[in-house]
């Protein structure tokens, strides 16, 4: 089966783990005479149009199957319906959910959900006793990223605390120092902030320094979406509370292999949806996670 | 004597704190060449920029056919029939000869909203005008101006002004970069324009050129009219003195040769103006 996967930006850590899952599933597809094509956004600047454009590109390639995150349903639904109408089997991955998959006629949903993951993070903070959580958003306006912070805020609010988002202007994106200093400033300004969560693993590296510099080590706790080596080292060392893990490797690996096997062999999984998260990586499960990170799968 | 086309009355011009022109009164008449003379920085270019709508006077008025006018933009002066070749620029290196010639007043063909630029006609007229200036090498109106020599470009700019100069033609040092032949052609053009009844304002640093075409001379010294006289009223030596800033100079352009010969190659001592 010829399968196309649509995914996030090239240099986004999360989506590189997705890519690892795809790459690992590819030999199985190819062994059965198929191919896998990973179509990635170049950036998140023109989000909905670019995603839909990629779906249309996939349709134009006359693939047999399509794995697609349903980030912006209003925009993507018509294109996904067109794909299904063109005889392409679709699995929703990472964003969308079971309901949406049924509605569109996709064969399954594999993933967690940005919003649900955010809620899990917010609740984790709440359970840990945090009362005021700041979600650092270095890509304000981007749909999937906004969902993360929204989830965090709803999660902590649900536990009786409060949360807010800190949107950073584009002039700060990618400058570790500008991000760190912005967080530090917020911490200095609002003494009650006792939890900080960043939308990416890289920003957490800046946040860690910011917390330290604000003199809040131990009082303001740090969480992050996604993981990198440095973040896991911090969890192990006790300077970071947790990372939210959707297990992206499983999302793409399972989505691609399920879809290929459905198309090639007619298999169907009775489980609907297939949930890969949200999982929380904290001090309790850090060692197993570290092993996966070294192989690029976590 | 005919009535003046253009008259300047008590024109002053300052750029911020810098006063460049003081109480200028001048008139230009049809069929007459006014030579504007003066040292570097005397204010000649500034004066003609006021006449061509590039600058507005700080105080004072301009009269056209005896009626006060204001030239808020070059276009207005142009529409009043005043056509100017400025000292620098005026052509566009990456444009074709035809387009550069007609810039701002493009000829069109067709009708209504679908009037289109008439390339063939523009090229033909431009090439003819430039050839009339003696630049017979130019035959293709599609050639880029940037490919022409400095002299050829200057000739193109002058040809343009002559072509559009309905009533007044202003030339700011048109012969500065030109070779002997081209300069002679420009002087002819000036005479031809005068013969057709245009008023011409001609700026030059070369006495010979001034005397060859001028009917009327105005000398600017430090932004004020220091002398205003007609052809024949002053000798070449007097004019040269005035052009050099008004000081009487021991050594002048025309004399240096003889001087050098008698002084065995030693230059005369500098006299500070």
């Amino acid at each position, binding site marked *: 089966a010829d399968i196309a996967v649509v995914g996030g930006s*090239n240099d986004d850590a999360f989506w590189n783990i997705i*890519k690892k899952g795809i790459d690992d599933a590819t030999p199985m597809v190819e062994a059965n005479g198929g191919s896998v094509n*990973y*179509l*990635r956004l*170049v*950036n998140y*600047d*023109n*989000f*909905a*149009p670019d995603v*839909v*454009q990629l779906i*249309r*590109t996939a*349709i*134009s*390639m*006359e693939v047999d199957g399509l794995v697609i995150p349903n980030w*912006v349903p*209003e*925009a993507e639904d018509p294109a996904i319906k067109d794909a299904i109408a063109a005889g392409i089997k679709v699995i929703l991955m990472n964003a969308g959910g079971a309901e949406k998959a049924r509605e569109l006629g996709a064969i399954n949903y594999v993933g967690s959900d940005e919003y649900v993951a955010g809620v899990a993070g917010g609740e984790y903070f709440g359970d840990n006793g945090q009362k005021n959580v700041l979600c650092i958003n270095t890509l*304000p*306006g*981007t*749909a999937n990223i*906004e969902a993360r912070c929204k989830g965090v805020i709803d999660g902590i609010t649900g536990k009786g605390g409060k949360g807010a988002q800190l*949107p950073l*202007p*584009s002039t700060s994106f990618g400058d570790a120092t500008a991000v760190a200093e912005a967080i530090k400033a917020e911490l200095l300004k609002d003494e009650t902030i006792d939890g900080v969560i960043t939308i990416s693993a890289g920003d957490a590296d800046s946040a860690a320094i910011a917390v330290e510099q604000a003199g809040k080590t131990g009082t303001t706790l740090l969480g992050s979406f996604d993981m990198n080596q440095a973040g896991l080292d911090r969890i192990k060392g006790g300077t970071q509370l947790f990372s939210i893990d959707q297990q992206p490797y499983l999302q793409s690996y399972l989505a691609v292999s399920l879809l290929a096997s459905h198309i090639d062999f007619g298999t169907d999984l009775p489980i609907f949806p297939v949930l890969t998260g949200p999982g929380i990586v904290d001090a309790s499960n850090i060692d197993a996670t570290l092993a996966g990170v070294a192989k690029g799968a976590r | 004597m005919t009535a003046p086309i253009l008259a300047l009355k008590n024109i002053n011009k300052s750029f911020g704190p810098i006063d460049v022109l003081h109480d200028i009164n001048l008139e230009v008449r049809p069929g007459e060449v006014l030579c504007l003379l003066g040292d570097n920085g005397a204010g000649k270019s500034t004066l003609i920029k006021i006449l*061509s709508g*590039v600058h507005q006077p700080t105080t004072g008025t301009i009269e056209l056919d005896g009626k006060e006018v204001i030239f808020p*933009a*070059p*276009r207005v002066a142009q529409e009043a029939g005043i056509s*100017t070749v*400025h000292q620098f*620029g*005026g*052509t*566009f*290196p*990456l*444009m*074709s000869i035809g*387009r550069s010639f*007609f*810039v*701002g*007043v*493009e*000829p069109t063909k067709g009708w209504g909203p679908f*009037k*289109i*630029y008439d390339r063939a006609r523009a090229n033909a007229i431009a090439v003819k005008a430039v050839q009339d200036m003696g630049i017979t090498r130019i035959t293709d109106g*599609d050639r*880029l101006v*940037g*490919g022409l020599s400095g002299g050829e470009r200057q000739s193109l700019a002058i040809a343009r002004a002559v072509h559009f100069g309905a009533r007044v033609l202003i030339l700011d040092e048109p012969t500065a970069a030109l070779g002997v032949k081209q300069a002679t052609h420009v002087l002819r053009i000036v005479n031809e324009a005068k013969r057709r009844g245009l008023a011409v304002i001609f700026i030059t640093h070369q006495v010979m050129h001034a005397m060859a075409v001028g009917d009327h001379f105005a000398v600017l010294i430090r932004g004020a009219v220091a002398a205003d006289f007609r052809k024949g009223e002053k000798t070449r030596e007097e004019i040269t003195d005035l052009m050099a800033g008004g000081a009487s100079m021991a050594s002048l352009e025309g004399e240096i040769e003889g001087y050098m010969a008698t002084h065995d190659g030693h230059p005369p001592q500098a006299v500070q103006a």
Partner: protein
Amino acid sequence: MTSTTASRPVEAMPAHGSNLSLGSLLRRPEAGAFLGLLAVLIFFAAFGGLTFLKPAGMSSWLNVAANLGIIAIPVGLLMIAGELDISVGAMVPFGAMTVAVISGHYGMSIWLGIAVTMAFGVTVGLINGYMVIRTAVPSLIVTLGSLFAVQGIVLGLTVLITKSTSVALTVEGPAKVIFGDFLFGGQLQVMVIWWLVLTAAYVFFIHFSPKGNWIFAMGGDKVSARNAGIPTDRMTILLFVLSSTSAAFVGMCQAILYNSAQVAGGQSFIFNSIISVVVGGVLLTGGFGSVVGIFFGTITFAIVNQGIYYTDFDRNWSALIIGVLLLLAVLMNNTFRKMALSATTKKKGA
């Protein structure tokens, strides 16, 4: 950047006229762009196979080119006139959000949404234009300022009004058909038609109507252009209005087509449009270029951008491939033009 570069390419520069000889064809500003286009077409046909050139595949890059091209042409005209407009990057999400908030969030008539979006586009253009002509600040800086300002307005107002950064919009009827649909239910966006019509209109405006000449004159030498009687201030404002309105228009059509609008930086349109324009043979220093060249440049960029998906290259290397291909396209463009010139023109020196 320097004033001297302006004079350097004269040697290699053709006239705007159109004789029919091969030499004069090659000397036109769009010739290099066309060759660059051919080269990337061949490259991707070789590495990506034929899907890429089938109707469905073609629509994939034509749609991208259409969205970009509508912005790239006015940006290119500004560059020909010696100015830059960076703010288009923010105008795309601004346009999308305006129509989505008015006709989606508030549920008002889509025509009102369209009218207000266009009006905002014109307004920002007027502001940019006025600031450029009234101050001595270069347009790069002015529009960089308005880029940030508009980004801030979009984010701030959208969150203030809708409490969200993503607004849904459902449009039916003629507005959908005219602005945001697929042609005949097929693969091509209606935007492609807009793009072609606008390109034709620009070609007429720039290369046939008498006013087009003015833009080249302004880029060649703004002072001389003004002295020649061209209303340079009015033209500058007009061009800024064109570019920001076009960007708002593209954003609006995207919102109507995709039923939603997001707040986003939109910076990719900035570099993408500049690249398309320069690959299309417009001189960064102004005074030279052509609409058809920009048209080819846009297609070249769209093919490079989309073509990657049709190849087997590891996606991680796509930025490298795009960078190298763009450099090659510009270089080819330059060198080929020079080669063509020395092969076809033999004139005497004196």
